[in-house]
């Protein structure tokens, strides 16, 4: 009897252990999962390997140079510093009448014209701003530096005057309205429309179609891969030996999302790279997406191109 009881007892214990222990472990695992999910929904970093998409924290210019700005503001209120000079805005091509435009003579591309233009903003060749290392100074030296720095800011062209990019973009956009207007329709007429809005691996063909149809280039961009079009567009010249396209990638920090309407964006990476045109707020090639491709795959912007006006000179 005792023997039977003991064996029975052990058997029952084994059965309980077999079912109860995994159940307990399972319950705890589930609870862990639940807390992890909760953490995920609360956007807390639950898993170190999971990518947490959060806005990048950037220190504002005002915060970084707070001391100097305060100095400047104090000087302004005390009346020691001259007020910001009122500068003439540069003349845009679209601001000129057709007669004025007709009076223009051809001798240089718009960028050079702007540099030579008398109506443009004044600019000085100033020494470089103190780097972050200089802030480590303290005592009299630091005060002196800050003081000089604030004076230099007076001499330096204001941020509002740095509209070189803006100028070029507006200028080209106005003169190449064909590109920005036609593309939305052209995109649909070409590869985009063949089998719906989806990536088909024919981005370069689609962009070629659009560019040739809208008259931006006469012949198609050669090469098998989309990434080959960056060096081609960079060196493409018109009959007068002027560059046909301007690469503004460096000036907007190689950020495709900052590209203006009508810009041709070329990427490297992957087998073939990628090429797309910004149509309105969308990025189109053989498909249209609301985000540039470097947000989806590991692609790198190798050029953001805008067509340049062939012959321009300032009338005044």
């Amino acid at each position: 009897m005792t023997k039977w009881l003991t064996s029975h007892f052990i058997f029952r214990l084994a059965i309980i252990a077999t079912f109860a222990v995994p159940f307990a472990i399972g319950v705890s695992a589930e609870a862990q999962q639940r807390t992890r999910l909760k953490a995920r929904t609360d956007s807390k970093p639950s898993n170190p390997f999971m990518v947490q998409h959060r806005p990048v924290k950037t220190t504002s210019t005002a915060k970084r140079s707070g001391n100097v700005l305060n100095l400047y503001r104090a000087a302004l209120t005390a009346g020691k510093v001259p007020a910001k000079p009122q500068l003439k805005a540069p003349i845009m091509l679209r601001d000129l009448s057709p007669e004025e435009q007709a009076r223009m003579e051809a001798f240089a591309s718009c960028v050079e014209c702007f540099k030579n233009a008398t109506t443009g903003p004044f600019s000085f060749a100033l020494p470089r701003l103190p780097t972050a290392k200089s802030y480590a100074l303290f005592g009299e030296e630091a005060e002196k530096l800050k003081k000089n720095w604030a004076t230099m800011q007076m001499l330096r062209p204001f941020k509002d005057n740095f509209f070189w990019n803006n100028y070029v973009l507006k200028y080209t956009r106005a003169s190449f309205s064909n590109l920005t207007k036609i593309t939305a329709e052209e995109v649909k007429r070409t590869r985009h429309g063949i089998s719906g809005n989806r990536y088909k691996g024919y981005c370069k063909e689609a962009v070629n179609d659009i560019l040739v149809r809208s008259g931006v280039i006469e012949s198609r961009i050669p090469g098998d891969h989309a990434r080959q079009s960056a060096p081609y567009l960079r060196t493409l010249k018109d009959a007068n030996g002027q560059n046909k396209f301007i690469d503004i990638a460096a000036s907007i920090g190689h950020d495709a999302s900052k590209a203006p309407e009508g810009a041709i964006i070329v990427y490297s990476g992957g087998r073939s790279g990628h090429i797309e045109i910004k149509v309105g707020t969308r990025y189109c090639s053989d498909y249209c997406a609301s985000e540039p491709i470097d947000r989806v795959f590991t692609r790198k912007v190798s050029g953001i191109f805008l067509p340049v006006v062939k012959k321009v000179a300032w009338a005044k």
Partner: protein
Amino acid sequence: MTETVVKPALFTVLWTLFVLAFASFAHASDKEGVKDLQAIHADYVKLAQKKDAAADSERNKLQHEVTSVINRISDAKTKKLSNSQIRAFASVIAEAVPRDPIAGVIGNNLEVMRANRKALDREFARLPKAKRKRINEAIKVFEDEEARGTNDTNEPEAN
């Protein structure tokens, strides 16, 4: 008493615990990431009707989350997934791809998809025809692109 009851009882309990420890680990690794994928799937379903750029951006973020989960849970060498993981992954693909013109979920997880192709195909077979077609087309595009040779590796790069 000690010989007849306590010792065998202790032995049995410890032995079952020892065995179950491994069993429970296996159980956990099979289910790893499934809940995450299910949660992502639910987020995709929530976004299904929205067409604005913000929703697209959200979808893109979810796509990256899927990739990070899949990279974490797939076998380091063989890139294999368990059945439940494949089921969850397939349901995410079915929800994500028709809304995404680039099909980033497929493009970024091509290696894992290739390793589990048979099992995934079995899951895709249950989907509606249009969805299945779209998914297969996307896979084909990326595989073709990968297979395409490079004839100009020495091309000068900008930057």
